[in-house]
């Protein structure tokens, strides 16, 4: 009997709005079938938001793939699982527990399981996947690979996903490899036929219906988007050291450059990528290249930032551009290399010894990874200082639906204040650390500019305005104060925060940033439905725009939602804006999984004393 329906709960019924989670073993070839599942739904015009939850391991450990199907376009995690595709005996107990009451379990029933292994409030769908494979394929590798496709076939039958969309994806994937295409279609149909013949109609009430909610949106990983932003932002030098979850930024940069940055005639490269010996060297190379007038970046994660801090201080004090894409993961130390967090704010904002402050940008999705990476290269040259693009594993390593990339044909790269040989010949005075324009940003020259004018010595020691070594107190103080003024100027160039105001002014407000954004969008809707509409503001950069201070001032209480333990953004707000700590309440999620809408709603409504009403809206209607 493939279906056991334990009728203690009405099965969940939902169209285009549910969560499916696949529990797999790392390295079992499940990843591509899972991705096909998500893409097929997307091709039916229904937004999906898939997330890989994977171990720091190549083969053997548990891995999960969670797909949010959401016609409303809620691309964050909701929390809870409506159907678990449990293919990993190792994690069976845990996976079973996660299923919502009234939810579904799909498992490989080749080996019979005792009734005690299940729950009585879910629908259990057993498919003898291994048995079907063993009967069909002689080859061991084929058995493994096609098992995933057969399972996809079963799911497509249950959810009523149009098989032609899956077949179309197959033919895109196996262009020119007709044999592979045919065998995949065959496996898909094996699964569909088995489900048709053995699973009673009306077993599964989770359905996908063709919709028109995807539009012209694109489906891309944040790391790839950041890499493309670096191509468009004119980066010519990339130095890096491999570290999860940032590695694919550089891999994508390499592959985009291969297509877009080779001279069509000579085949020569208009970029250089160097895999350095460590992060000390990678940031050193970026600084050397930027000092010499190239646009340069590195991509790294927490431990890499730790190693780079001495150099970051040099770049701050000597005023050298540098772009660091920090794809954050769980810390401290090696922490949780394949889990997500927003826990490097403080270590980046104030990186290095002495008084320092650095510009941070917080993209919410791949579209902003693209925009902010390109912008960071401009900002670095404009402000002559390190710029951090603070993305994270959740945005960086998952496919995310987002607005298509845009580029204004009239946009030119902002190379900042650079004096040329012509300027020097025209008699312009050059003093490397002279604040000529009153914005704290001095002019620089590049090595090799002029035979007799404009050379200077760059150093991490203190200096006077003319770049001469100086330990004189007044010189030092003047320089440090100018750096503060420059940081103030940074506000006018950095992306402004975005406010989402409730229909009528709310007493409380909520601040958030980065990858929390999609879950927050859903949470805010839920809170509004539960009669607790909140004004919200998404912070997109540090230094904080003045409107952040105004937002806090305009609300009695402000929640700051972050994915770290210590409320790092909250500390920065207190430190930089001087707000009363009692007024801002930290809502913190830091177990390494991406924050969910349910978590946010529960935390905020508990504070507001609205628990019942709010949670009610989260229960399936």
């Amino acid at each position, binding site marked *: 009997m493939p279906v056991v329906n334990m009728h203690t709960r009405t099965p969940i019924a939902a169209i285009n709005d549910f969560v499916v989670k696949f529990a797999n073993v790392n390295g079992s070839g499940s990843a591509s079938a899972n991705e096909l599942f998500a893409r097929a739904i997307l091709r039916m015009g229904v937004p999906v938001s898939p997330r890989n939850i994977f171990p720091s391991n190549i083969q053997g450990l548990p891995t999960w793939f969670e797909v949010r199907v959401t016609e409303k376009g809620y691309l964050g995690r909701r929390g809870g699982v409506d159907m678990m595709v449990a293919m990993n005996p190792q994690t069976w107990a845990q996976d079973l527990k996660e299923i919502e009451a009234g939810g579904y379990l799909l498992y490989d029933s080749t080996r019979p399981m005792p009734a005690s292994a299940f729950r009585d409030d879910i629908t259990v769908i057993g498919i003898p996947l291994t048995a079907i494979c063993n009967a069909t394929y002689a080859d061991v590798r084929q058995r493994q690979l096609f098992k995933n496709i057969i399972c996809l076939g079963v799911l497509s039958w249950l959810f009523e996903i149009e098989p032609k969309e899956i077949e179309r994806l197959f033919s895109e994937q196996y262009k020119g490899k007709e044999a592979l295409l045919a065998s995949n279609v065959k496996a898909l149909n094996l699964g569909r036929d088995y489900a048709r013949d053995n699973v009673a109609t009306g077993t599964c009430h989770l359905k996908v219906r063709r919709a028109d909610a995807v539009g*012209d*949106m*694109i489906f*891309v990983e944040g790391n790839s988007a950041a890499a*493309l932003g670096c*191509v*468009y932002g004119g980066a*010519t*030098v990339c*130095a890096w050291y491999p570290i999860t979850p940032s590695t694919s930024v550089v891999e994508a940069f390499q592959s985009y450059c291969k297509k*877009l*940055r080779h*001279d069509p005639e*000579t085949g*020569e*490269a*208009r*970029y*250089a*990528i*160097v895999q*350095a*010996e*460590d992060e000390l*060297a*990678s*940031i*050193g*190379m970026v*600084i*050397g*290249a*930027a*000092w*010499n*007038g*190239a646009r340069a970046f590195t991509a790294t994660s927490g431990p890499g930032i730790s190693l780079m801090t*001495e*150099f970051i201080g040099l770049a701050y004090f000597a005023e050298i551009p540098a772009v660091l894409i920090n794809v954050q993961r769980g810390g401290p130390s090696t922490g949780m290399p394949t889990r997500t967090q927003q826990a490097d704010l403080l270590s980046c904002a104030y990186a290095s010894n002495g008084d320092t402050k650095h510009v941070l940008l917080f993209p919410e999705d791949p579209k902003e990874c693209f925009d902010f990476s390109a912008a960071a290269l401009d900002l670095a040259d404009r402000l002559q200082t390190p710029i951090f693009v603070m993305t994270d594993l959740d945005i960086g390593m998952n496919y995310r639906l987002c607005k*298509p*990339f*845009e*580029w204004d*044909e009239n946009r*030119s790269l902002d190379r900042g204040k650079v004096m040329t040989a012509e300027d020097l010949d025209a008699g312009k005075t050059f003093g490397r650390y002279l604040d000529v324009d009153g914005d704290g940003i001095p002019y620089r*020259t*590049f*090595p*090799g500019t002029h*035979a*007799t004018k404009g*050379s*200077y*010595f*760059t*150093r*991490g*020691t203190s200096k006077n305005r003319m770049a001469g*070594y*100086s330990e004189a107190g007044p010189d030092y103080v003047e320089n440090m104060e100018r750096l503060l003024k420059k940081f103030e100027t940074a506000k006018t160039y950095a992306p402004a925060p975005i406010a989402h105001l409730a229909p009528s002014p709310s007493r409380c407000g909520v601040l958030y940033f980065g990858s929390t954004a999609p879950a927050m969008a859903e949470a805010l809707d839920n809170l509004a439905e539960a009669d607790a509409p909140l004004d919200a503001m998404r912070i997109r950069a540090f230094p904080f725009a003045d409107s952040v201070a105004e937002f806090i001032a305009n609300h009695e209480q402000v929640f700051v939602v972050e994915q770290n333990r210590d409320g790092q953004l909250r500390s920065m707000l207190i430190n930089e804006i001087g707000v009363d700590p009692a007024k801002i309440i930290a809502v913190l999620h830091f177990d390494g999984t991406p924050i969910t809408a349910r978590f946010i709603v529960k935390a905020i409504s508990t504070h507001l004393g609205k628990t019942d009403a709010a949670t009610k809206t989260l229960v399936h209607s």
Partner: protein
Amino acid sequence: MTYIAKPKLHHPALTHNAAGFTRRDYEGTISTLCAGCGHDSISAAIIHACFELNIEPHRVAKLSGIGCSSKSPTYFLGNSHGFNTVHGRMPSVLTGANLANRELIYLGVSGDGDSASIGLGQFAHVMRRGVNMVYVVMNNGVYGLTKGQFSATADRGSKSKKGAVNQDSAIDLASLAILMGATFVARSFSGDKTQLVPLIKAAISHQGAAILDVISPCVAFNNHAGSTKSYDYIREHNEAMNRLDFITGQEPITADYAPGTVTDVLQHDGTTLRLRKLAEDYDPSDKAGALAHIQERAAAGEVATGLLYLDPLPRDLHEGLNTVAAPLNSLPDEALVPGRAALVKINAGLR
């Protein structure tokens, strides 16, 4: 360190080189190092070499780490951009600078603490990558700037000024550089200008990773009896493998040599290195032989100097990366930004 500008009095008798510059144009500010410090002699040799090579001073970028040695770039080539980076990390900054603009001459200056202790990793890797540069180690066997601690090039058994005996074995940067893939490796002595200047000139003309390990006594902390990096010790134990004459492509070869004692090596840029053999069986093109020879001499208590290893036709970092001939920092927007149409296509591929 104070900043003292050198008076720019142009002495009428100062001669101009072919590029139209006087010796003064290659000088920097007045040195603030100890009188008699070996590092100052190396600076003087750099000035001398650049003048004679007719280099336009601003076409040189000089980079250093931290230490007395790393301060030296302030004392030469005042019309060149300079960069005092952080302790032990000059190689990476120089690598980045070189990536940005392959047309300049990169002069890296470092100390033995800077290169062999804190910066050993970057030292090794910059050699491996074949970065086109001249890397000068002003090697005094101590940390001068932090007042006399042993560095990693101090010989085992050598004595510090305070009487401590070094227990650790020394790192030989020249041998290490050969092993790591440097293509021009020389050792010299700050007190031997006739040997040092042609080596610097040859290193500058070399189109790959060139390193000069220059023994440079620290008069303040490592010039006493029992030190193996003192003026007296090096004068007594210096064993030159060869003497080098540097000949630019255009100059006629004038001097006469006894047959069999001279080897001419043609470099990428058309210059010739003329090597006069001093050690009978020394062949600087033989990597394994060079390494063995350096060790044999060291075992005999001698310091092998001269051009120790040379690959006259090296492959540099840019060749491996296949970068365009124009400096990357000079590429206009059109060469870098693929434009809107390309982006529309990329978007289409992501649906």
